[in-house]
């Protein structure tokens, strides 16, 4: 099933998994303001449609996943204060990925730089092909990333590695990214998208409330004091155990059959 408008960012549904597709291959999927708006418009649907249980994010074309913002049209975001407030206008494509409540898997290849790297970091799981090149090169132009680059990258790879990325602005290859933990798997180029889809579809087969709560709690692990987060986890666990799906899971276990989850 396909929904959404054809364009540079496309939205497709395959079973219970949504596909977010960057489709401007001639410009390494560099994000325009129009694409930014498109991306944000899909997030509401993803978050509020109970039938969507996981998301795959990928870029079309041989050159790469995404080269970040199209720097030739940054002025279209308005004056400096308006650009600063782009989050409130639904005009930040990396923020949009961060706001997805459903588990999100990024399939990466070729260039994954600037805002492209921010979208990857805002996803939950990253799978890359061996030719993927990561770069937070904003520093070379006179600024640092503003949609998670200094924060999410640091959470992903630790302060030393992140500083190397952010202050040096140089390319980091896929094998180094794997070693740092920036990507979870490196698989051959022709298999990377299939692998990402397989992970997302496996997640979509799990109990949706438990899967979303798990994503939420992993987020909380990065932003809460540990003692508070442990208490929060236990309340979230207790909530999960009140769901119909948890009862179904226990029943299926006893009856030695696969559970059939409804998202209730």
């Amino acid at each position, binding site marked *: 099933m396909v929904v959404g408008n054809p364009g540079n960012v496309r939205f497709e549904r395959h079973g219970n998994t949504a596909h977010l597709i960057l489709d401007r291959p001639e410009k390494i999927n560099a994000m325009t303001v129009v694409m930014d708006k498109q991306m944000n418009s899909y997030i509401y649907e993803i*978050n*509020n449609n*109970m039938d969507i249980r996981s998301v795959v994010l990928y870029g079309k074309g041989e050159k790469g996943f995404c080269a970040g913002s199209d720097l030739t049209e940054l002025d279209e975001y*308005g*004056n*400096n*204060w*308006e650009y600063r*407030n782009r989050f*409130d*206008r*639904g005009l930040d494509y990396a923020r949009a990925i961060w706001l997805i*409540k459903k588990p999100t898997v990024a399939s990466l290849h070729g260039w994954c730089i600037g805002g492209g790297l921010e979208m990857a970091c805002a996803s939950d799981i990253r799978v890359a092909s061996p030719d993927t090149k990561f770069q937070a090169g904003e520093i070379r132009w006179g600024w640092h990333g503003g949609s998670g680059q200094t924060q999410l990258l640091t959470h992903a790879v630790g302060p030393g590695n992140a500083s190397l990325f952010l202050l040096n602005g140089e390319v980091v290859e896929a094998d180094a990214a794997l070693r740092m933990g920036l990507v979870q798997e490196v698989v051959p180029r022709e298999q990377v998208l299939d692998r990402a889809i397989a992970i997302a579809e496996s997640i979509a087969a799990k109990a949706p*409330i438990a899967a979303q709560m798990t994503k939420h709690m992993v987020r909380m692990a990065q932003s809460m004091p540990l003692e508070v987060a442990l208490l929060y986890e236990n309340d979230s666990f207790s909530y999960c155990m009140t*769901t119909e799906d948890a009862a179904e899971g226990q029943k299926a276990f006893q009856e030695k059959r696969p559970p059939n989850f409804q*998202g*209730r």
Partner: protein
Amino acid sequence: MNLPLPELPEELRFEVAGAVATITLNRPAKLNTMTPAMGKALVELVYYVNNTSDVRVVVLTGTGTKAFSAGSDIKVLDDYGSNWELRNRVDYARVLWQIRKPMIAKIRGYCIGGGLEMALMCDIRYSTPDARFGAGEIKLGWHGGAGNTQLLPRHMSTGKALEMLLTGDMISATEAEKTGLVDRICEETELDAKVADLAHRIASNAPIASELAKHLVRISMSTSPDVGLMYENDTFSYCFTTEDSKEGRAAFVEKRAPQFKGR
């Protein structure tokens, strides 16, 4: 930037006077209780207010003298859907927290449950002497889900907050002012004028500096003083890159009132 005004249901009124916008909860026959539809419309209004530079300050109030708002209309709670959908609801109080611009609550009568949560999302609260404040959810079998347990203790001692949260009993405007929940009590005949005066005085200041001041007060609630102080110094430096800060200095030297443009 200015946007077209979104279409609003009759239960939600919106007016702009000068640079001050007033959002009025307009369901007086039902103590200005909130429905899911009103919550969704509030989302549109928040987007409009944040992204319309002609609006610099927001006032939130309710129609009539019986209530600011009594919170959710309990009779339509099922409209939110399953328990999981209720958890993921568009929350009318939470959405007010997203407003970047200074916001004042003008309170008459009952300010209870989700109504209290909406008032807590505002930056400054003025009320009449007969206003009453309460978090009565506990009497029904739950606690507030959009701020009562988190924000009440920031406006009173934890003991007083727990007294309200665990008994569900209401407190008077006088008590609320004593704890700091209400910032000023004004006579019924004076409340509108006092709030308008406050709103217009705030609106006459530099909008970027005002928004950042609000933001930094929020930051002070959620980070350590060391981090907050560093963050403050960087936004202070940012303020000095604005045209308005140059205008402020020029006006000071020339002994005239500054004309701020929000740039």
